[in-house]
């Protein structure tokens, strides 16, 4: 495991993260999230009145629009759109504002691998910023199996190209403020739950579980990071209010 990667990271090491919320003026909620050189800008509009056709009007509808950095939206982007949509549908409380639509627009600013997890993290931060009711936060991470069967976290583009298989994992964030033991247990069992898992390429079942373990280990730091970054604004508010 001591093997270093090309960019000097250890296999389980993430790239530097950064996250800022409320970066846009017009959007109801927005966030910029970056993992190393990968950077995503997400904006949320909503909840807006009415749902699209073919959507259940008794629930809130989530709409995801993916904007590539250059050129037209292709099949890959359509797939991302769908994965993000499904994931967010799971973390949003859809029955609080029935018959409304919440649009999430995801703009790729720079792609250096792990694009989808970064987008999900950004979208989730933007939802928090917009005050959309959420069941919990999602933390996303990608994990790939390199040529020499190493399981590496948060691969960059170069590593993604060389990998044998890749898995995008979305977990529920770790809740810090559990009340007592009983709820701690509850929390734990949910925490381990995967919201989304998307795999590319062939990997052994063992490898998959290995990825899962590694990914799970990253939940805690990731959600701590999100907590820290997302609270700042509220904190300043409160200092005002106080």
């Amino acid at each position, binding site marked *: 495991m001591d093997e*270093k990667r*090309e*960019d*000097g*990271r*250890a296999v*389980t*090491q*993430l*790239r*530097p*993260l*950064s*996250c*800022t*919320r*409320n*970066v*846009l*003026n*017009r*959007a109801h909620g*927005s966030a*910029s999230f*970056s993992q*190393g*050189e990968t*950077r995503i*800008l997400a*904006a949320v*509009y909503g909840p*807006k*009145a*009415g749902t699209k056709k073919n959507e259940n009007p008794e629930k809130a509808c989530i709409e995801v*629009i993916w*904007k590539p*950095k*250059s*050129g037209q939206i292709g099949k890959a982007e359509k797939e991302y759109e769908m994965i993000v949509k499904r994931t967010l549908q799971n973390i949003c409380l859809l029955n609080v504002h029935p018959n409304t639509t919440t*649009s999430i*627009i995801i*703009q790729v*600013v*720079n792609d250096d691998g792990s694009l989808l997890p970064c987008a999900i993290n950004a979208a989730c931060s933007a939802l928090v910023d917009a005050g959309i009711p959420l069941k919990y936060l999602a933390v996303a991470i990608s994990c790939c199996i390199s040529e020499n069967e190493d399981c590496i*976290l948060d691969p*960059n583009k170069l590593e993604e190209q060389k990998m044998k298989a890749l898995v995008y994992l979305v977990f529920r964030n770790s809740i810090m403020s559990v009340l007592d033991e009983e709820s701690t247990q509850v929390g734990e069992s949910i925490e381990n739950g995967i919201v989304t898992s998307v795999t590319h390429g062939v990997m052994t079942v063992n490898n998959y579980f290995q990825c899962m373990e*590694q990914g799970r*280990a*990253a939940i805690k*730091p*990731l959600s*701590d*990071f999100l907590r*820290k*970054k997302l609270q*700042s*604004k509220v*904190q*300043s508010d409160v*200092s005002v209010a106080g």
Partner: protein
Amino acid sequence: MEQRLANAWRMTVNEKKFIETALLSDLRIDGRRPFDYRNLTIRFGREDGSSEVQLGQTHVMGFVTSQLVQPYRDRPNEGTLAIYTELSPMADPSFEAGRPAESAVELGRIIDRGLRESRAVDTESLCVVAGKWVWSLRIDLHILDNGGNLVDAANIAALASLLTFRRPECTLGGEDGQEVIIHAPEAREALPLTVHHLPIAITFAFIGDENTVVIDPSHFEEAVMGGRMTATLNANGDICAVQKAGGEGVIQSVIMQCLRIASVKAVDITRKIEDAVKSNNTERALRKIKRHPPSAVVDVIKAGQKGADNLLEENMEKPKQEIEDTIVSQSDDMDIETRSSNQNESKPRIDKNTSFIGGPSSWDPYSKGVNVDELKASLASRVAALPSEKMDTAPPVEPRVTVTDPPLTSTNAAPSSEENTGAGQQTNKEKTLKDAVKPKHKRKKKT
């Protein structure tokens, strides 16, 4: 019907009326005078040819890509230049995804005309084999936040991207000497484009019954304006394009007055763009030299390892402590600047810095690292850096309260290569503060 009503952005009668009445006494709602331009910030992405422009609350991202294609039959030895603008639904609740709207088309056409008809980019130098292979440039302009005057902001973004774009060098080779070999940028330095001059678009709005002229309208002003005129000029005072597509009629002398004002602003903005590009080039050069320190990636988090917790805690504590600091000292110009220099001096500071801006750092060699660090930081996440810093330290302003300041300032304006780290940071800071307070002088007095 009702849905549409609920979702549209609208203005009250009060606002409309107030904008007009305030203008009668030469006041604008954001505190500007009629001929004040908003604050301009130009940032560059890590990749060549990508830029982000922020003009007041308007935010545009430009991105240039190139491709080898067959030339048009009537121009066999000229490369091509295409501009794609899209009003992303991100920018404004009324923009929708899908087919570009009329206004997006007009936006693209104005920029297109300004750039192409005035031959700002030397397209002949983009020719590889006459009649067979030429470079085709594509400029994507993403409108991210519509705070009004998209034309000017998008135009600046297009220019900034073009100026920093580099196309890979290619030579002819192969058996028949006709095969095009594209060299990787690592092998042979990529080539910048030849840009003859910078056509700068300056937009005026005509508001109210009196047809009061204002420069650089905000989106509130755009909602009440009777007409708009965009003049594209270069620093020499040559008019490259004019667009006044109908709307309120104005007398000829007003048009000429606008053009004269525009020519002054164009000089200003040209300088700003050039400064930003220059400092970007220095950074780029530095990045090249410092490429080796085993990559700039460093962990904030070591998942599943002992170190992780400590590291995190550290990260968590720092900002808190800092918040206290700032609140006590009322976070002022001075304060922030000193802090920023601190960040680069002491180790823990740097550490914290990292956590803010995603710049790597906790691997040891600062001597080598700091610059790269800053470069990455500034490039990768200037935006991120800015507001997050602000938030963590509870300083004067939310990013969205950006208000104008007549003298334009671009972030990248200064940093000399030596003290890159500090300078970059500081410019950031300065801008923050300028943004913070409408008339900046008021703020400064406090210091």
